[in-house]
């Protein structure tokens, strides 16, 4: 997707004023947290599994070179092909080459965030190959020419009337006077439309939730079954995925699956969890004749050994954004990046540069909820803090903020002066604000008071109160 992270502040303001979006957010947000908690409560071993899931991913990343080579050898042994791709462009070219060799006109796609990351769809279209998204949410977004706003519920920002109007506008071969009396009617129409496409497609592209070094398998998780149809019906199956998805064994995968669905949708297990290993075997009545894996790096290897290595554990469950107060207020589009929410705020600067995405790690209150629900315990607030530090070091922070921080640092390093200054400020504000109890406007704090009132301090500073109490107690 086209990056617009630089415009986060404007995007967020727009999102807050978007009534339809706010309705969708209000509907979805409480459900996400409630469902996850219920699933966690049903599994007493959940916390133990979180620790194990973290350890599995840490182990895989600490030996990533070895497991990738082992995985690639296992894929080749099962008759598949691995295409190693350093950059998004390498990956796009690799997919196109496979499609052209297959003489493909139509390509069906299972849901894949990596293909969003590499902007595969517009590239294929420009080269005469028509990609069709088959995940219901991705399908309507493709019709509407919109990017996903959530990594697992891509169209949750839409309301029912949006679905109906889009289907009426796009499915012009169907009777114009048809009635959508229930949500089911929308689903049935999409199912019918996409059935034709599934059967006609020459190539099917899916992502992967996990790659298994032991067996050379790719694993996808869906509820609709679209990923399975995508990879079963066409003659060629292409898995577009990235290097950090590799884990050693089937058992490692199973442990991760136990935390994935519970963290994501609050299901114990997604409906379809499918392990694919190579092309059709002798005697198989179905399945693709060719099996390709496009293995993308796109900056991930550069995270190994840095403070951002922890981010490579991410299994894309979306729990962090589902529980984030910032995401919950503005939704996913405001981030202007492929990956929104807390995980996106850490990953995006890595993918597109901190110059482009500096706002994202700043769009956090550091409440810590994201870290507390992360199934692989990624210290997301800390990683966002690292980005803020890097941004500061590289003089990317605005001058006013740098100036303010400079003044604060000067005082903070001089305790006597600091106490005196805060005392004067607290007493002054307390006196001036004694009538209303808050301020509608303050000098040097226009950015704050434009959106909300600044509460007037009540009484003295912490230090002064502390000293007074110690004196009382003798």
């Amino acid at each position, binding site marked *: 997707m086209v990056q617009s992270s630089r415009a986060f502040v404007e995007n967020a303001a727009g999102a807050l004023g978007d009534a339809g979006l706010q309705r969708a957010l209000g509907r979805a947000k409480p459900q996400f947290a409630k469902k996850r908690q219920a699933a966690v409560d049903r599994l007493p071993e959940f916390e133990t599994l979180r620790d194990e899931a973290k350890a599995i991913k840490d182990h895989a990343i600490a030996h990533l070179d070895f497991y990738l080579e082992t995985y690639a050898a296992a894929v080749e042994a099962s008759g598949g092909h691995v295409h190693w791709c350093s950059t998004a462009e390498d990956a796009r070219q690799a997919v196109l080459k496979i499609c052209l060799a297959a003489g493909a006109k139509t390509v069906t796609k299972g849901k894949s965030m990596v293909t969003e990351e590499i902007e595969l769809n517009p590239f294929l279209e420009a080269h005469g190959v028509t990609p069709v998204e088959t995940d219901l949410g991705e399908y309507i977004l493709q019709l509407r020419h919109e990017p996903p706003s959530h990594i697992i519920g891509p169209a949750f920002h839409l309301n029912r009337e949006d679905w109906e109007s889009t289907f009426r506008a796009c499915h012009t071969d169907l009777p114009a006077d048809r009635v959508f009396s229930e949500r089911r009617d929308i689903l049935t129409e999409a199912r019918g439309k996409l059935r034709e496409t599934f059967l006609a497609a020459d190539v099917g592209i899916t992502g992967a939730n996990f790659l298994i070094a032991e*067996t050379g398998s790719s694993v996808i998780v869906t509820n609709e079954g679209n990923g399975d149809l995508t990879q079963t019906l066409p003659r060629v199956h292409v898995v577009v995925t990235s290097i950090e998805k590799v884990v050693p064994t089937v058992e490692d995968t199973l442990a991760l699956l136990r935390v994935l669905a519970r963290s994501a949708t609050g299901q114990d297990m997604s409906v379809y969890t499918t392990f694919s290993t190579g092309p059709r075997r002798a005697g*198989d009545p179905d399945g693709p004749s060719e099996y390709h894996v496009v293995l993308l790096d796109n900056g991930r290897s550069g995270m190994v050994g840095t403070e951002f290595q922890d981010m490579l554990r991410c299994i894309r469950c979306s729990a962090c954004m589902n529980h984030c107060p910032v995401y919950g207020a503005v939704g996913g589009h405001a981030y202007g990046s492929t990956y929104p929410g807390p995980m996106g705020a850490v990953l995006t600067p890595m993918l597109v540069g901190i110059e482009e995405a500096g706002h994202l790690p700043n769009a956090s209150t550091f409440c810590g909820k994201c870290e507390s629900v992360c199934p692989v315990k990624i210290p997301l607030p800390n990683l966002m803090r690292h980005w803020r530090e890097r941004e500061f070091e590289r003089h990317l922070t605005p001058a006013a903020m740098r100036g303010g921080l400079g003044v604060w640092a000067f005082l903070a390093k001089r305790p006597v002066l600091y106490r005196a200054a805060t005392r004067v400020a607290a007493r002054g504000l307390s006196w001036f604000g004694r009538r209303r109890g808050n301020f509608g406007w303050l000098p040097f704090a226009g950015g704050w008071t434009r959106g909300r009132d600044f509460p007037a301090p009540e009484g003295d500073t912490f230090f002064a109160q502390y000293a007074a109490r110690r004196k009382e107690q003798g």
Partner: protein
Amino acid sequence: MPRQAMLAAIRRGLKRGPLAADAQAMLLGRMAHHPRHTVPGRGQLPPAGRVALFAQMVEREFGTVARLPALADVPGAVATYLKTQNQPPALVVSPHPVLAGLDFSGLAARTGSTAAHDAAALTYAFAGIAETGTLMLPSGPQTPTVNNLLPDNAIVVIEAARIVASYEDAFDLLRQTGAMPRNVMLVTGPSRSADIEQTLELGAHGPRRLHVLIIDGAV
């Protein structure tokens, strides 16, 4: 070569060269041994309890269950099910040897793979997983993958003796049969989507209904 560049970048980050032979041997040993992690206690029950939990979990995930004394009861149960669902008495049967001996004379039954317009299929599950009411459906000459996906009504036969506690137990059974099949589906309930206003609707792209026939007796 991107492959070498990617591996070199990873090794730079890890501050080492390719793994030494002994370290590689250790990791290969871990893969050969494939140790289990914590397996939830939920499914660890005696056989009867496992089967009961499996049935309960299938229903929790919006599937339906019928328990049959013997395999010979399958055609009757299928006919009854299709009738109660207002479906035509037609069926595609997977070419599995266990299903081959059954008498479907009351139904328009065909053995093989489903096409787009077939409304119902009868398949044979390799294993059932009590923990979450999950079916393990590997691909192979006797078990077309499309039969799990294309029909609106998926009817699955599972022998009670093949219902195990955990995913790990099911994969252990699968490993005993040889190499990993091309495709292994773990199916938990009928197809669904919550993409429209976070509201669950069954029957997205896969089957709208999943009916599981548990064969209690020995086969």
